[in-house]
C-alpha cells in the first residue's frame, strides 16, 4: 500500500501546480535570518533600549519589516511565477488595502483626538499643544 501511495504521489508531488516547496537549505537560511532579526529587537528592548526612543523604535520596526520579507521568501516561497503571478497580485492588492486601513485609521483618529476639547483628553493620549486653546 505504501509503495503504491508513493508511486502515485511521486508523480503528483514534484510540481503539481508549479508550487515551490523549498529545500532544507532555504528553510535553514530563512530560520537563521529570522532568529537574528528577532534577537536584535528583543535584545535591544530587553536591555533598556537606546538613548533615542525614536531610533530604538525604528530598529524594532525595521527588523520586523525585513523579517516579514524573509518569511515571505523562504517560508511562503513567494515569487512572481506561482499560479501565473496571481498569488503576487493578490498580495500586492492586500498590502495596498492594509496600508490604507492602517494609515487612514491612525491619521483620522489622531486628528479627532487632537481636536477634542482639552478636558476630554485622556491621559496618555498624544496631545498637540496649541490646538483649540
Amino acid at each position: 500500500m505504501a509503495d503504491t501511495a508513493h508511486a502515485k504521489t511521486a508523480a503528483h508531488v514534484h510540481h503539481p501546480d508549479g508550487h515551490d516547496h523549498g529545500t532544507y537549505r532555504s528553510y535553514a537560511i530563512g530560520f537563521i535570518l529570522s532568529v537574528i532579526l528577532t534577537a536584535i529587537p528583543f535584545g535591544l528592548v530587553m536591555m533598556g533600549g537606546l538613548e533615542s526612543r525614536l531610533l530604538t523604535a525604528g530598529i524594532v520596526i525595521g527588523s520586523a519589516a525585513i523579517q516579514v520579507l524573509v518569511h515571505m521568501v523562504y517560508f511562503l516561497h513567494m515569487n512572481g511565477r506561482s499560479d501565473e503571478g496571481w498569488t503576487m497580485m493578490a498580495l500586492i492588492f492586500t498590502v495596498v488595502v492594509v496600508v490604507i486601513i492602517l494609515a487612514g485609521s491612525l491619521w483620522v483618529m489622531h486628528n479627532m483626538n487632537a481636536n477634542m476639547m482639552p478636558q476630554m483628553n485622556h491621559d496618555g493620549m498624544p496631545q498637540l499643544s496649541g490646538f483649540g486653546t
Partner: protein
Amino acid sequence: MTPTIADDAQYWDTSPHHHEEGASTTIGFWIYLMSDCLMFAVLFAVFGVLGQSYAAGPGPQALFELHLVAINTAFLLLSSLTFGFAMLSTVAGRQDRAMLWLGATLVLGLAFLAVEIYEFQHLIHLGAGPQRSAFLSSFFALVGTHGLHVAFGCLWLGTLMIQIRKHGLTGANIRRMTCLSMFWHFLDVIWIGVFTFVYLLGMI
C-alpha cells in the same frame, strides 16, 4: 443543448486551460489568507488607535513580561521550521518522517497556546482583563484572535495527522498539508506584527 456525458468529457479534455484536480486550491487558499490578513489589519488599526487609552489603568510596562513573549516567538518560529521540514519529507514521499515533523509542529503550537493562556489568565487575575481599558480590550481582541487562529491550526494539524495515518500521503492529503503550511507560516508572519507593535513598542 444539454451536454451529454461524452460532450462534457470532451470539453474538459480539449480545454486549453485544463488543470488537474485541486490545482487551483492553493491560489484559493491564498486569497482566503489575504482576506484574513485584512481582518488582522483592522485589529492592528484598532490597537493602534486605542493602544494608549489606559483609562488610568495599567499600561504595557506594568503588565507584559518580555521573556514570555520571546519564548512564544521561539516556539512559533521553530514550528514554522518543523512544518517546512514536514513539507519537504512529504515531497520526498517519507510519510514516517513527515508525521514526526508534523507531531513536533503540533507540540510547539500547543506550547505556544499554553504560554498565551497562562499570560491571559495572569492578566485577568491582576484585574487587567479586556474590560479594564480600551488598551486592554484591543490587546485581547488582537492577540486573542491570533491565538484562536493558532488553536484552529492545531486542531487542523491533529485531524490531518489522523487522515495521513489512515490514508497515507495521497494527493488530497498533500493538498491539505500545503494549505495548512501556508496558514501556519502566515500566522507566524502575523505574530511578527504582534510582538513588534504590541509588545516591543509598548515596552520602549
